[in-house]
């Protein structure tokens, strides 16, 4: 909750960015640093995914988790990327490409950028002091993160079968808990409150990745509205960030899917290689990652049916490589003799429940297209795919349609086969809408490209940088700067006005507890707001006696203070 904790998180996520930059340098390099800036979101997600993969491997083989291991894994990945880049003869990048000019967005684009900036400011403010309330968050993820932080390894009673009072979801991979445990180290304590800001960094990374990949290919007036819509859909904002791993999974899969879609047309090796690393990270984020990653690859196979001789071997290699990277964890789980937590019923029992099939499909379709969850986003994605298909962009359109179809089928199968899930969209009884976070964000990532293809077919004009007058450019950037300043300024002035009068932000730490005792003030032993005991010793005879008492208390490991009553 302190500035130091927030600072620690910033350093950690810059470390993810640095690691990812090393890998991206090995995979493709960049000719100018402005190009790296454009791809910083991709680099960041590559850093997260690669570190999760390597840390999981380290945990499986029994290495102790802690800052030395984390740093060593990061340095190893950067070194690998640099060696690969050196072997591929990457030239040192220039600061700016030749003829570079400051981008000048249109006024409408500037308004949309300003809206996204304000969104992130408000999102940061809402997460900074949020509590970790969700059962899934603390039971599945943060429990393991705290265990890694305190014990430095996969404790048997948390990760294994020796849980004494009921099971822990043991077959869930430790990739995301490893990120959370690294966050605790970076913050200096197991601060489960500031930990919520992890989702802010990941969301920013995802938006930056999609925007960076699509910026040279899609005009801003198509890209920005879809990005804004994806950020504000009630399925993401309607409930507080629950502390689970659905969002990290969605960001990794959606970015991998976008890279695969770009590869379908452009066939640049780095795109498929980066997608492979992101998918491996997704496999080690949640068990559903395997299912959703399979949907991505199956959609890519279907989209390249006409070019299967050229595309399929490389797609197959990508899928196998991602699976192999996640294989140590699967082997570890298989050797632990855990009860199968994923499937309540096998395939034959599922067929016996055929009566659930149709209601499950209906539920999955409502989870995908429900306006209350995702507004018009999935409908826009389907329409964009159909338009792009008609416009001749067959591969990306086929990918999008097959992927969304497979996602609905997968969600149907989950509800159908797991009879303990109710036939309802109630979040606490069935995770159908949570499962859809990944497909919907994947649709959001791919939709701008589909719309651009359809638009180009109609208008004949490709996306490109337009030069605008100095006045327009200055006004556009003034709008963005105004948005950056206006939101915190309005908060300081007390704009929100729900309960607080406004003012500068506070960064509470344990000292606030001393000022906020929770009852028992009239007794000699009081409990403070942090659950600590305050022990009062009244009527100390003299200052010298007080000093002696202080030294005794310090020797006992207490934190004593001498207060004069003023008499």
């Amino acid at each position, binding site marked *: 909750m302190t500035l130091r904790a927030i600072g620690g998180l910033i350093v950690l996520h810059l470390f993810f960015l640095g690691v990812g930059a090393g890998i991206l340098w090995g995979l493709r390099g960049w000719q100018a640093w402005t190009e790296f800036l454009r791809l910083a979101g991709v680099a960041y997600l590559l850093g997260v995914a690669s570190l999760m993969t390597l840390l999981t491997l380290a945990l499986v083989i029994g290495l102790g988790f802690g800052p030395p291991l984390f740093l060593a894994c990061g340095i190893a990945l950067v070194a690998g990327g640099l060696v690969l880049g050196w072997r591929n003869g990457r030239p040192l990048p220039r600061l700016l490409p030749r003829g570079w000019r400051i981008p000048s967005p249109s006024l409408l684009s500037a308004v949309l950028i300003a809206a996204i900036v304000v969104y992130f400011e408000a999102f940061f403010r809402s997460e900074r002091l949020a509590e970790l309330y969700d059962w899934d968050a603390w039971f599945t993820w943060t429990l393991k993160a705290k*265990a890694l932080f305190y014990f430095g390894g996969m404790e048997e009673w948390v990760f294994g079968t020796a849980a004494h*009072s009921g099971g822990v979801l043991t077959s869930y991979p430790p990739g995301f808990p490893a990120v959370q445990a690294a966050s605790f180290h970076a913050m200096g304590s197991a601060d489960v409150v500031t930990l919520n800001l992890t989702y802010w960094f990941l969301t920013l990374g995802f938006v930056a990745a999609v925007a960076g990949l699509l910026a040279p290919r899609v005009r801003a007036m198509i890209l920005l509205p879809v990005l804004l819509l994806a950020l504000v859909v*009630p399925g993401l904002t309607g409930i507080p960030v629950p502390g689970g791993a659905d969002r990290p999974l969605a960001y990794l899969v959606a970015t991998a899917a976008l890279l695969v879609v770009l590869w379908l047309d452009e066939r640049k090796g780095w795109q498929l290689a980066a997608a492979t690393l992101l998918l491996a990270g997704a496999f080690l984020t949640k068990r559903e990652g395997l299912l959703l990653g399979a949907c991505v690859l199956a959609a890519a196979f279907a989209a390249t049916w006409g070019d299967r001789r050229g595309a399929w071997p490389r797609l197959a290699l990508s899928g196998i490589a991602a699976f192999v990277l996640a294989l140590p964890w699967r082997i570890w789980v298989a050797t632990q003799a855990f009860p199968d937590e994923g499937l309540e019923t096998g395939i034959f029992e599922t067929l016996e429940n055929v009566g659930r099939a149709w209601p499950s499909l209906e539920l999955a379709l409502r989870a995908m297209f429900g306006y209350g969850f995702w507004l*018009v986003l999935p409908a826009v994605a389907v329409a964009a795919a159909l338009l792009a298909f008609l416009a001749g962009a067959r591969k990306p359109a086929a990918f999008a349609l097959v992927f969304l179809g497979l996602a609905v089928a997968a969600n149907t199968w989950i509800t159908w086969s797991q009879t303990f899930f109710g036939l309802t969209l109630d979040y606490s009884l069935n995770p159908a809408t949570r499962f859809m976070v990944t497909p919907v964000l994947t649709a959001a990532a791919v939709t701008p490209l589909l719309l651009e293809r359809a638009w180009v077919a109609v208008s004949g004009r490709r996306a490109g940088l337009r030069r605008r007058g100095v006045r327009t450019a200055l006004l556009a950037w003034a709008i963005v700067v105004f948005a950056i300043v206006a939101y915190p300024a309005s*908060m300081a002035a007390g704009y929100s006005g729900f309960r607080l009068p406004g003012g500068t932000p506070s960064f509470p730490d344990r000292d606030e507890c001393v000022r906020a005792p929770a009852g028992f003030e009239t007794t000699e032993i009081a409990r403070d707001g*942090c659950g600590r005991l305050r022990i009062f010793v009244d009527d100390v005879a003299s200052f010298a006696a007080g000093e002696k008492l202080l030294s005794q208390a310090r020797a006992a490991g207490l934190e004593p203070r001498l207060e004069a009553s003023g008499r």
Partner: protein
Amino acid sequence: MVAAAVAGIARLDETLGLFDWRADRNASLSYLDREYGDRGWALDRRVIEDARLWMPPDAEYGIVLGSRWDNLDGQVAADFLKYFLLPRKEASAGSAPWLFCYGCDVAELASLEVLSRGRDGILFGRRR
């Protein structure tokens, strides 16, 4: 594209209001409110706070669910202790020096020195 823009901008105001409301609410919580969350998983915070004060960080504790708590609430409460009390470890209830009991009959736990007693038969104590 127009549909996406209209829907996104229309929803933005509501989203910002929601974020602001949450931020204000979070700011009004106490340190312990934020640590526990507001879902009531702990069942009785006072007993858990007493337990945190009594048990050193390397302590091992057991959890006993009495017949009255043979339900989801009791199990979730036990799960919450696993998470919340770290780095204190859960151990077998038969041998752990510290014990939580949800809905137990105290008479059956003669060896237990009860250190904190909450509502609905929730106890914390140590073996004599």
